[in-house]
């Protein structure tokens, strides 16, 4: 490593002698990997600093091995103006310990009516356009936004959940919701929106990324779209990969999420789609919420769970269960998201930034939420046993954790 970038990589065999004056780090047989790139994190800054700031989110990220995160525009004010993008970029440069890249709003005020200034926002530093946790329901607005985005090579990231079909639903529709007396969210809320989007992408040929998909039928839609050569990628939430609706148990609001935790068959389909390579990326969907928004009856609580700090530990469950290999997992957590966003990280090769993690995939621990770096504590993995831990995190050659 030299000047914050990787200078050379030697695979197998003996490494050449370190140049004079170089520091060396003994990795003691652990796994050295490119730092994780998280395409979806909600941060409270600006506007909700009591839940999370760019600094606390970045510290949680560093502890979880995430060296680059994309922050969502659901702030107050929303990140829908070049001046706000500029604020976030500067604020992150001054306070955050990992790379923070803002995603700008797709529509002004995330109201779903008028597209934002894609060109000017990209010049200010926006890496993608999304209305965060909201879907654009007006197909004409979506069509024009996709059309305009294509001219600028902009990446559109869309939350696929039709709010009318969600209605008052608060968890996956089915037997369990009926037993709990909670209104359900049908899978079609996701598939109808996703199918619509695929047709609009076919029409416009814009670069499109489905932020998070959660059910088996969605993978069918995406398989067809990719086979047809559409410029489409997709993500899944770590929560939908490692938890299912049964985890809601006794109305645990930390497991109230959007998209909702689904049936075990959907979770299995999600893992299969990840293993097959159909799913491009895994996101933390990090969403800090405090007691005021979570210590409420299930139906009234806000959506969202912490994710940055536990992303890798939770994902390693799939490796330990032998459902996916470690390289495949790291590809979905690091290499692919960097490629989709056009960021230089996510790989171990000369010239890439020295954003690295040292990982012990086997170290077991029980999560104590009081130790979390986030300003909020709504982790769905509180008191859960996790296997695998990030020992060291490095951003541009500087150690930021461990």
């Amino acid at each position, binding site marked *: 490593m030299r000047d914050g970038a990787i200078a050379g990589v030697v695979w197998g065999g003996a490494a050449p002698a370190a140049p004079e004056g170089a520091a060396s780090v003994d990795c003691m047989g652990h796994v050295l990997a490119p730092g994780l790139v998280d395409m979806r994190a909600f941060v409270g800054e600006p506007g909700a600093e009591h839940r999370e700031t760019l600094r606390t989110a970045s510290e949680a990220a560093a502890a979880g091995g995430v060296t680059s995160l994309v922050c969502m525009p659901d702030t107050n004010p929303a990140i829908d103006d070049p001046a706000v993008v500029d604020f976030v970029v500067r604020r992150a440069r001054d306070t955050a310990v990992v790379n923070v890249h803002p995603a700008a709003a797709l529509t002004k005020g995330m109201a779903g009516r008028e597209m934002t200034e894609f060109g*000017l926002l990209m010049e200010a530093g926006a890496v993608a356009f999304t209305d965060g946790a909201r879907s654009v329901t007006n197909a004409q607005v979506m069509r*024009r936004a996709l059309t*305009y985005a294509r*001219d600028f090579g902009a990446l559109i990231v869309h939350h696929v959940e039709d709010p009318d079909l969600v209605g008052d639903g608060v968890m996956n529709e089915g037997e369990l919701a009926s037993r709990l007396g909670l209104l359900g969210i049908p899978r079609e809320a996701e598939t109808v929106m996703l199918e619509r989007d695929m047709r609009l992408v076919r029409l416009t040929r814009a670069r499109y990324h489905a932020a998070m998909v959660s059910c088996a039928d969605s993978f069918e839609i995406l398989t067809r779209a990719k086979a047809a050569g559409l410029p489409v990628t997709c993500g899944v939430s770590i929560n939908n990969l490692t938890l299912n609706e049964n985890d809601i148990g006794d109305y645990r609001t930390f497991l109230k999420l959007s998209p909702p935790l689904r049936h075990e068959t959907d979770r299995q389909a999600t893992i299969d789609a990840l293993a097959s390579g159909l799913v491009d990326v895994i996101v933390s969907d990090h969403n800090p919420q405090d007691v005021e928004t979570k210590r409420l009856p299930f139906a009234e609580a806000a959506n969202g769970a912490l994710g940055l700090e536990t992303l890798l530990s939770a994902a390693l469950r799939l490796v330990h269960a032998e459902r996916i290999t470690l390289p495949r997992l790291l590809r979905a957590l690091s290499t692919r998201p960097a490629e989709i966003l056009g960021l230089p990280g996510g790989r171990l090769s000369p010239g890439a930034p020295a954003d690295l993690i040292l990982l012990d995939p086997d170290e077991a621990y029980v999560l104590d939420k009081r130790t979390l770096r986030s300003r909020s504590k709504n982790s769905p993995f509180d008191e859960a046993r996790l296997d695998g831990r990030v020992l060291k995190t490095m951003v541009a050659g500087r150690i930021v954790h461990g």
Partner: protein
Amino acid sequence: MQRPSFPHRHLLGIEGLSPLDMTALLDLADEAVEVSRQAEKKKATLRGRTQINLFFEPSTRTQASFELAGKRLGADVMNMSVASSSVKKGETLIDTAATLNAMRPDVIIVRHHAAGAVHLLARKVDCAVVNAGDGAHEHPTQALLDALTIRRRKGRIAGLTVAICGDILHSRVARSNMILLSAMGARVRVVAPTTLLPAGIERLGVEVFTRMKEGLAGADIVMMLRLQRERMNGSFVPSVKEYFRYFGLDEDKLAFAKPEALVMHPGPMNRGVEISSAIADGAQSLIREQVEMGVAVRMAVLEALARHMPAGE
């Protein structure tokens, strides 16, 4: 003097005109320019004839230009605008046509907000009809005046590269110009964000660009189009600021075109939206000349149609 005869009873669009027709109109217009520059501007070609300007859409300059053209040829000109007509009271387009027809006009100049409305009206009257703009379809006299302006300045149209920039989707000026300039041998380009391009435009014989830098490279003529206010706030483009940044003609972008490139705009301009004031008023601008050529071209069109106007009983 023997001229090739103009074989059409109406001028409904550039579509349907042969290059010979176009050249004949431009030649006539060259003569009309001379007439308009004399102290005595009046000819007798249309003496005793009645011209009705029927404008369903407000227009200051086109209506004034047609009015002057008719008057310089000696016609009696009547202006009917929608605000003062019975159309407001619910009369249909066909009824209006029948009513006006009964007044025995010799030529009706029509502007309408709906594409095809002028063609419909032309089928219901006995006199000549000139399309002064129908929806986003055609505006033939604008294309002719643009061609006249170019021909007088560059000496030719064939072989020139013309970049038409801006709201192509909603523009009748763009459609008429694409047809006319291509027919006369120019290389026509359109430059706009894809949201302002009609589907399948590349099959209309033009080259399509979505960036000014590439679209203007090597252009002889840069023709800017007006962007309506209601289209610049997030529906078709995000904002005025962003539109001007990437598609507004300023000195930086004009520098991509040939050094001797000329700038045109059909008016009315949105300064600071599609064109900067420095360019609009600069040495390369032909915008005021276009207005002068407008009267001449409309005189030429009326003269060419005069021989087909109804004879007395």
